[in-house]
């Protein structure tokens, strides 16, 4: 799916969204939801030509406040290894495994959060890299684990899998907001959640989560699932393909 198609879809959904969101947010009895938000698309297909994707998140709030968007990818374990010099050669020496690390983590806010929302509140909702829970599967003291934790974050940021502060939530007027979430080409597949929070007077007064599915589609999906469901058969097919090409090259080359 091309970026243009996604944007066209965004525009259509966005227009619908505005209508619905304005109705809810401006409910006169004051008992309407304080926050309504949605993604323009709930699934991203990784095709053979996949170069990354953008998804628009939009919504409305019923009064002043800060909007915080946190997108979290599927979690798994990540091992961080440190190289040391051993007999003149740099080799992996020490390692720490972290459990339930999100494969993708992005935060976008309307304004920088410093001093607006308390640390305890941010920690509770895992908002910001310093509040992201990265549990080390080790009994070692914190001061030994900390450099590994820092380098885990640094490496994930370098790979554009952790992105904090490079996207903003922008207001369109006083109530409507939107932001764009960007996913790199090597984004892990699985179920993502987009959490949207409304902060007012240093507290989170409203929150909403929306799922997003990223999966392989088309040939790349077929190849991948075949390689996992019938691994030996997949290997045999890979060999047969190579034999056919090798034979063909040999035949052409004979001329």
């Amino acid at each position, binding site marked *: 799916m091309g970026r243009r198609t996604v944007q066209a879809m965004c525009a259509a959904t966005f227009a619908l969204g505005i209508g619905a969101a304005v109705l809810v947010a401006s409910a006169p009895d004051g008992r309407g939801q304080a926050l309504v938000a949605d993604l323009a698309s709930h699934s991203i297909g*990784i095709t053979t030509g996949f170069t990354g994707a953008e998804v628009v998140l939009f919504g409305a709030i019923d009064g002043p406040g800060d909007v915080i968007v946190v997108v979290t990818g599927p979690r798994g374990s990540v*091992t961080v290894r440190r190289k*040391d010099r051993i007999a003149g050669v740099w080799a992996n020496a020490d390692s720490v495994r972290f459990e339930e*690390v999100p494969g993708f983590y992005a935060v976008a806010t309307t304004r920088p959060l410093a001093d607006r929302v308390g640390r305890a509140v941010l920690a509770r909702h895992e908002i910001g890299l310093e509040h992201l829970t990265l549990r080390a599967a080790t009994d070692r003291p914190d001061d030994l684990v900390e450099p590994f934790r820092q380098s885990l974050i*640094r490496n994930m940021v370098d790979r554009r899998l952790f992105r904090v502060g490079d996207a903003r939530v922008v207001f369109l007027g006083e109530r409507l907001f939107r932001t764009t979430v960007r996913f790199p080409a090597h984004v892990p597949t699985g179920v993502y959640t987009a959490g949207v929070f409304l902060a007012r007077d240093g507290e989170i007064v409203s929150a909403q989560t929306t799922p997003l599915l990223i999966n392989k589609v088309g*040939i790349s999906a077929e190849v991948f699932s075949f*390689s996992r469901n019938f691994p*030996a058969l997949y290997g045999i097919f890979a060999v047969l393909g*190579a034999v056919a090409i090798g034979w063909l090259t040999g035949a052409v080359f004979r001329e």
Partner: protein
Amino acid sequence: MEVYLPIAEMSVNGLLIVGMGATVGFLSGLFGVGGGFMMTPMLIFLGIPPAVAVATQANQLVAASLSGALAHWRRRNVDVKMGLVMLAGGAVGSAIGVWLFRQLQEIGQIDLVISLLYVGLLGFIGTSMFIESLFALVRRRRKARGRRKLHRHAWFHGLPLRTRFPQSRLYISALVPATIGLIGGMLVAVMGIGGGFLLVPAMIYLLDMPIGLVAGTSLFQIIFTTAATTVMQAAVNHTVDVMLALLLLAGGAVGVQFGTRVGSRMRGDVARILLSVIVVAVSARLAIDLVGAPVDRYAIDLTGLR
């Protein structure tokens, strides 16, 4: 042109990969080698996970060695019996190699072992090939060459399981070619190379096979060893990326043809000196990476996320 690799789970520039395949194909046609020793490090430099690079390279080598072996087959330069004995060892070797690869990957030392093997093996073979072909050049100029003995006998030729290899006119223990095949099979699985430049000297100096049969027989053996390795890597480690193999083969098929044509007009010893320089250069490049301080001492392993 970005192409998403379904097993490596990343996108690469397709034209770049085809271009690399063509370049390495050209060089392998030029020198009559498989080219795995150039391609695997290049793929790893590009950021392809080493496990995927090595396993996919085995798949690519099936095609490369087949088209090479066909040419030798037509000229009857293949000792099939010798090849089959080596292959028996090769299958065992690649099974050991696939298992070893997985163990090393789990303890996080696979990159180091691949680098050390490349530096050690390529450095040694490249240097000795360079010296040997320099001497060959000098000797040819002087045209003074003593008569070679018909057949040398080493102690290991008399090990149990002595077998007749009529085509090579040898009566030696089958354990020797089987062991050479075993080591070749391990190299395919761990390093992503066909092992031709290790097998060929071993067959010349250890087996004392007729020179004319060596290249064809080693290629014949490599087809099946790389095929067995591909199936095992796919079954055990899920690391064979057919999309990547296809891109490499598309470039390689074209490159090989041009390389072979140029190669046929090049003098053998000159080609060997050039090849040895490339081999030593690859090994030196990897040695610098091993010894030099890394940009980031910490690295993350995301296989647990997949």
